């Protein structure tokens, strides 16, 4: 591989750049369209050079209900992630440091719930939510996102906790540290980078979720997925508005996603790839 010829080197570079540009182009075009007027965004001749306008951003941030939906997205994504970490840290601690015969089975069972298609539980959850008045509420969505992400969070935390040397915990126990001390004062700080990137991945997954958001919320508890999908019948109209609303919804998470690429592979493959 080291003896690649000059034409070969130029060739792979051109190819690599072309692939990146083509893959990213639709996103670039979305961002570009968000700075156009609605008329220009749907012009028959695509405009690459134009005088940009912030009108669509003003419209999204001031005149629409963007903030209502954005706050629900933050509430559900952050809320479910915190709940996942609170439930996941003790479970992962137990799996990593207090192994028993049942540990592997429990871990596999948790991961297998992630393989259950959401439609398999849609109808009962809808009906139960209707009776509990949780339909169209951010709380109801948060509770589902917790169940959705918990297997991934437990699995990732387990892999990070396994990297903490057991001797440290044993030494601490000799010094009289309790179980709670071990979890809160020793393992959590040592595995903090892992916990943070796990949380970031959980936020990305909850933020982008569409199935539950569309099916069990409408206005009150609805997230940005629901807000943005309101543009689905915009056939050539309001494209700049649509692009601005979409850009505002995806950009923060896209940047977060760039930093979670590694965790993403680790978290979404459930250890099927080493």
């Amino acid at each position, binding site marked *: 591989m080291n003896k690649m010829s000059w034409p070969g080197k130029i060739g792979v570079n051109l190819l690599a750049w072309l692939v990146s540009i083509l*893959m990213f182009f639709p996103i670039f075009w979305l961002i570009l369209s968000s700075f156009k007027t609605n008329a220009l965004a749907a012009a028959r001749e695509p405009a690459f050079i134009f005088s940009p306008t912030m009108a669509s951003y003003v419209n999204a941030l001031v005149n629409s209900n963007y903030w209502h939906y954005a706050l629900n997205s933050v509430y559900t994504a952050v809320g479910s992630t915190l709940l996942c970490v609170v439930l996941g840290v003790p479970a992962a601690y137990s799996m990593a440091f207090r192994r028993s015969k049942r540990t592997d089975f429990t871990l596999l069972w948790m991961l297998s719930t992630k*393989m259950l*298609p*959401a439609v*398999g539980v849609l109808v009962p959850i809808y009906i139960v939510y209707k009776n509990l008045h949780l339909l169209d509420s951010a709380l109801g969505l948060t509770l589902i996102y*917790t169940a959705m992400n918990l297997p991934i969070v437990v699995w990732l935390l387990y892999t990070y906790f396994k990297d903490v040397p057991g001797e440290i915990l044993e030494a601490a126990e000799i010094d009289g540290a309790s179980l709670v001390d071990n979890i809160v004062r020793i393992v959590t700080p040592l595995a903090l980078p892992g916990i943070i990137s796990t949380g970031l991945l959980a936020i990305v997954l909850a933020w982008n979720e569409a199935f539950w958001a569309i099916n069990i919320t409408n206005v009150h508890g609805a997230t940005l*997925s629901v807000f943005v999908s309101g543009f689905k019948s915009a056939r050539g109209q309001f494209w700049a508005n649509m692009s601005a609303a979409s850009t505002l919804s*995806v950009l923060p998470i896209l940047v977060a996603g760039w930093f979670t690429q590694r965790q993403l592979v680790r978290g979404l493959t459930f250890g099927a790839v080493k």
Partner: protein
Amino acid sequence: MATRAIRSTVKTRQRQLGKASQGMISFLLIGPAVVYLFVWMLVPLAMTIYYSFRNYNLIRPTFTGWAGIANYANVLADPDFLSAFINTLVLVVASLILTILFGLFFAVLYNNEHVFGRNILRTFAASPFFIMPVVTGLIWSNLMMNPSFGLLAALWRGLGLVPIDFLAQFPMPSLVGIVTWQWTPFAMLVLLASLSGVPEDLKEAAGLDGAGAWKTFRHIVLPQLGRPLYAVVMLESIFFLVIFGQIYVTTSGGPGTATTNLPYYIYLQAFSAYNIGAASAGAIFAVILANIVAIFLVRMIYSNIQEEA
């Protein structure tokens, strides 16, 4: 020696606490997570099974009682269900083949050390995966594929061709294309992580032995990718079975039922026809389909955990 002494002290202490209370502590640690998943996943699944054998329609309150296998029979006799089942398989299989081919190609490309700025290029190429499925649908159905104002229509006109209404004329291939754009980065990232584990000197040795780029790839690199490829096939199958957001904003399952997959069919049964019994029976079929894949996946994960422990 010291650590052994420490360990035995801890062991003694754990023994003093007694087996029962040790088990109690473990249960207190794992219990909440297990109970949470049980309540949110298995209890509703049991309810779905129950509803699938009941007469239950939200707009016919007097229509109650046991249905026997009527819901299953009705669903199986429904041509829309059969087409949804076939559409699901087509969507999963076609997207699988394309994401893996492109993903493998991209991974090999970005793994090449001669590519300048390959980490940044890879990050840009990975971006589609982080875009909300709903926004993905909007970008493609409007900005890209709209037959009058879309970018592809302009490109077609520029080439002197008549623009195509992709989502109306070729709904399923268009949907496969959209899913492929979104998910190729996943295959790429997983394969890239495995590729970087292929030892450089192994490739060099093959090169010294006169193996060309293709032969090196075929006999050195590809065999190392066997397990990751197998894993990607199963993981993507499970994720592709539940595709919803992209369909909801692009075609709404149409034209007709051309892009209605199982999740979308069940959604229509539940929230357009209000037929809870039929929706539940359809959902059970989706669960069975996912389980066929999940069995192999769980087995693979299990063997990996065993190897590490």
